[in-house]
């Protein structure tokens, strides 16, 4: 990537930054490659879910367990968090005050934790219905796929906290900028996975 291209991708490095634009370009491209490798993991878990969907073995079925409204709320939470992260990126890029950047990151973090809380609540209800992973192949595949996304959101949330601390410690040096950029890719990527989850898992399960 040339300097201009990096800027296009949402990164504005100062003149006297440690990293060159070339290094920043590699760093971000490398993270893209990592995400794609991760996407293959999700793709295979989706395929496994599809294969095991009929294997309910007399236990709870998708129609029994999935609820429309909580899923919708979770979707809105996650979509909104992506939007607020976008605003954080804009704040970082255009030199807004540190408080504004931290504010948007904080809002994103709260939305992410809200999503996790709701998802955990869903799982608790499923567990109390006897819909546990050891009950059937179908539930095993559900609990491998959906919580893995949740785990990603959890790691993303920890990462947001780490980055907030780094912004406070180092200000916006080149590495903080690059890592915020990567975190943004990660966060938006989780949305894409979530789209597949609510469509293929939840909505499909609720279609009559």
């Amino acid at each position, binding site marked *: 990537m040339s300097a201009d291209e990096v800027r296009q991708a949402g990164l504005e490095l100062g003149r006297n930054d440690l990293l060159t634009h070339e290094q920043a370009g590699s760093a971000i*491209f490398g993270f893209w490659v990592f995400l794609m490798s991760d996407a293959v993991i999700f793709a295979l878990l989706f395929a496994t879910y599809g294969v095991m969907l009929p294997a309910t073995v007399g236990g709870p079925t998708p129609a029994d367990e999935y609820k429309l409204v909580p899923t919708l709320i979770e979707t*809105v939470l996650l979509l909104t968090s992506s939007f607020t992260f976008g605003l954080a990126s804009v704040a970082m890029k255009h030199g807004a005050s540190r408080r504004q950047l931290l504010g948007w990151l904080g809002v994103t973090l709260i939305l992410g934790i809200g999503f996790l809380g709701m998802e955990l609540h869903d799982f608790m209800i499923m567990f109390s219905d006897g819909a546990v992973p050891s009950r059937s192949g179908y539930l095993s595949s559900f609990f491998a796929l959906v919580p893995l996304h949740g785990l990603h959101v959890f790691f993303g949330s920890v990462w947001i906290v780490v980055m907030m601390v780094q912004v406070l410690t180092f200000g916006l040096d080149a590495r903080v900028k690059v890592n915020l950029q990567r975190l943004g890719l990660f966060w938006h990527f989780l949305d894409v996975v979530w789209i597949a989850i609510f469509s293929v898992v939840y909505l499909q399960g609720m279609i*009559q």
Partner: protein
Amino acid sequence: MIRQSDRKRSEIRTYVTGYVLALLLSAAAFAAVRWQHATPTSAFAVVLALALAQMVVHFRYFLHISLQRSARDDLQLVLFSAVIAGLMVAGTLVILFDLKARMS
């Protein structure tokens, strides 16, 4: 300096557009299931089509993947990954459902 704030505004507009489109597409998918009129197969097809559209929106407005030269590397990477993942998922489903059909 004016250019700078212009760019900032246009970038915010990009995120707003993406957010609104994403919300609309999600809402449409949920609505298609909540007030389902079609057969299960076509309802699922609608949901999948909406999901695909929403993924494109996310890649375009949030992940800044576009047809522009600057994002060409990333676009090629995403498309190649999609092909490989599609191959793996489709192959898995075909093979294992075929096995299931032949064994029941």
